[in-house]
């Protein structure tokens, strides 16, 4: 039915970065380089502060210039070496059974990289300040001992730095995989929801159009004004369909606007055999509901309440908020479900899609019931969480823009 063709928006299913949403871990190009530079600078600064206060307790031995030089030099060198660590992290994966080998490789890499860093650091420090950094404890020892102890001390720190950097890279990598998986899953879920909605629209439009156009064809002769009304309402429905596009959820106001038009047209079609009463609480109008959630239920009521009885049926639609939940109630005074009702009867199949969509969108947070009423007729009750416009997941794009 091209008449009701939905707005085709190619971008709809692609992840869209919200404006202002900065994901530090997905930065690219210059901004990524700048962020990394800032991180290494911060580490260098903290090291400088540590050195300054650690060795200037009794009297001022080192100047801020010196400690800054040492601190920044040490961490910028690690910054330069970090791509090597990142490369190793990407290559070495931990399995459940083989963790010894990866750990050994990392340990070897840590030792050798620390040594490289230490040598480079010594060169830089010597070149810049003519002073190789030694602690007071080390100065008390003999020269060879001193060199050995110095090496051991610095290597320990180097290895620690290496593993710290590697750990952070592993975490970033894990986080990225997690996000990618999450994004993929939400895309799949969204696809499923969209396809269920498409199915629903596909079922609704052809036979509804067919019946409506037949009604109009008769009314053109019998009651042109009424024919005019039906066509106007039909075009209004078409406009709403185009506006809504592929939205999975819409405010109840829009849903009711659509269902009102649908019912109005049916009221004209069935004349006095269909009567509809509505009790929509004003507070519920801005709450989100799944698009077209009430349509199949109303359609069922019409089908079984009106088409099967000469005297027709009364349909009542109401919405309220109860215990912070939105309660939608649709009832008719038709013949009821009958004792043989289950999921495999036509009514059951028609409502299966509705049930699946609610499950998909709200999980345990919803309830859906269909039952015979005491005085005759069927009552369908849908309870879903209260969610206002702008709340998360209202448009399915909530997985963007953190950090």
């Amino acid at each position, binding site marked *: 039915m091209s008449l009701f063709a939905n707005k085709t928006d190619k971008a709809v299913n692609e992840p869209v970065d919200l404006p202002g949403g900065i994901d530090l871990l997905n930065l690219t190009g210059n901004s990524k380089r700048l962020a990394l530079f800032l991180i290494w600078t911060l580490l260098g600064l903290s090291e400088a502060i540590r050195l300054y206060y650690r060795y200037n307790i009794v009297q001022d031995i080192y100047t801020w210039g010196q400690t800054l030089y040492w601190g920044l030099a040490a961490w910028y060198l690690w910054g330069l070496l970090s791509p090597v660590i990142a490369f190793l992290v990407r290559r070495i994966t931990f399995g459940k059974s083989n963790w010894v080998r990866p750990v050994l490789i990392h340990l070897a890499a840590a030792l050798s990289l620390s040594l490289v860093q230490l040598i480079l650091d010594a060169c830089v420090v010597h070149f810049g300040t003519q002073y190789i950094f030694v602690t007071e404890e080390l100065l008390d020892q003999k020269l060879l001992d001193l060199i050995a102890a110095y090496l051991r001390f610095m290597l320990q720190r180097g290895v620690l730095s290496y593993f710290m950097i590697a750990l952070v890279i592993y975490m970033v990598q894990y986080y990225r995989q997690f996000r990618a998986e999450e994004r993929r899953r939400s895309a799949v879920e969204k696809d499923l929801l969209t396809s269920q909605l498409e199915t629903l629209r596909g079922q609704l439009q052809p036979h509804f159009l067919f019946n409506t156009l*037949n*009604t109009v064809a008769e009314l053109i002769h*019998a009651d042109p004004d009424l024919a005019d009304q039906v066509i106007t309402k039909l075009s209004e429905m078409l406009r709403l369909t185009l506006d809504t596009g592929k939205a999975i959820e819409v405010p109840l106001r829009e849903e009711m606007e659509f269902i009102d038009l649908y019912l109005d047209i049916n009221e004209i079609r069935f004349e006095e055999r269909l009567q509809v009463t509505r009790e929509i609480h004003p507070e519920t109008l801005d709450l989100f509901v799944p698009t077209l959630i009430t349509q199949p239920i109303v359609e069922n009521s019409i089908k079984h309440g009106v088409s099967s009885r000469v005297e027709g049926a009364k349909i009542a639609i109401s919405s309220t908020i109860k215990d912070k939940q939105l309660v939608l109630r649709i009832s008719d005074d038709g013949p009821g479900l009958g004792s043989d009702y289950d999921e495999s009867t036509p009514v059951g199949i028609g409502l299966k899609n509705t049930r699946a969509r609610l499950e998909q969108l709200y999980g345990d947070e919803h309830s859906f019931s269909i039952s015979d009423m005491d005085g005759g007729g069927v009552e369908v009750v849908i309870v879903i969480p209260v969610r206002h416009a702008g709340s998360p997941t209202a448009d399915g794009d909530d997985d963007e823009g953190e950090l």
Partner: protein
Amino acid sequence: MKMKVLVVDDERLARRRLCRMLDSEDGVDMIGECASGQAALEAIIQRSPNIVFLDVQMPQIDGFEVIRSIPEKKTTGCGFCYGF
């Protein structure tokens, strides 16, 4: 000879539309219209139409039930007006 045609549909507007269409055809003699399966059966027995345009979904006696209930000696052709 004109064909005697009966139209059966519980929806008045749909029924009127079909009657209007058929009425404008030469060779068609509209002998009546019915709003229910029960009325359709009575009309078929009393007025012996050549063709019945029959709605499927109707209250109480539906289209299939009407066909099953037509007495055997009647030679009426029935066509379903099927609108999904």
